[in-house]
């Protein structure tokens, strides 16, 4: 399996990204995860299954409940987590550059 490609497919979906973000700070049960979304519970279950298959999430049985955790090892491979941050600064700096280029010619 081409894990890397699958990981990127997994995070291409906004709901799945939201789930990962939710689990970044705590582990939760499927029910608790679903309660954060307006989406139907079976849809959330499907997203959880995909994320687990891609090994971005791991399941842990505690009593009768299953908790979902972020698989930190694989998340690190997704360095693109900070890509939106880089892009935000790149866009700002591009704007700065074009504004100041005009400023220069105006003078």
């Amino acid at each position: 399996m081409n894990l890397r490609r699958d990981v990127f497919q997994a995070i291409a979906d906004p709901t799945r990204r939201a789930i990962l973000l939710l689990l970044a700070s705590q582990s939760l049960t499927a029910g608790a995860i679903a309660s954060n979304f307006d989406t139907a519970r079976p849809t959330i279950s499907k997203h959880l299954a995909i994320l687990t298959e891609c090994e971005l999430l791991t399941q842990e049985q505690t009593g009768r409940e299953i908790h979902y955790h972020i698989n930190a090892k694989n998340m690190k491979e997704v360095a693109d987590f900070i890509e939106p941050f880089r892009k935000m600064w790149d866009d700002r700096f591009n704007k700065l550059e074009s504004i100041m280029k005009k400023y220069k010619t105006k003078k």
Partner: protein
Amino acid sequence: MERKTKIDAENGKQEIFITREFELPVDLLFKAYEEAEIVEQWMGTRVLKLENKRQGGYIFETSDPKGNKYIFSGTIHEFVPNQKITRTFEMENTPFGVQLEFLEFEPITEDTCKLNMHVIYRSVEIRDQVLKLPFAQGINMAHNRIQDILRQLK
């Protein structure tokens, strides 16, 4: 496309480095940080206060499409024209607290220059959360869009 802005964020550290080269003389780059009017244009914020001096400070305000206002503010510790700015930065009403920023402006040639930004957060966890923020906002925006569409369908 060439990636002009570089982010250096080593795992497990509470700091990041942002570097960028500009096709501008260093004094023009500095001016973009110095003059409130220009800051407003490229940062996309309103500048409520910008006091460029040692023990000066700044207050920026942005609003989202729903009209919610966000305040960004800080204190200026060093202000050396065309060379450096040392300041704190805080997004008010967020749990992230204050971060320390060292901005260095460096000429490369007469018409090009480089900005080095060294940002230090209180902890590794806070740094990682802040780095993920634009990612999170992207999600919220997508969600808001979905909600808007659903509302129209009703």
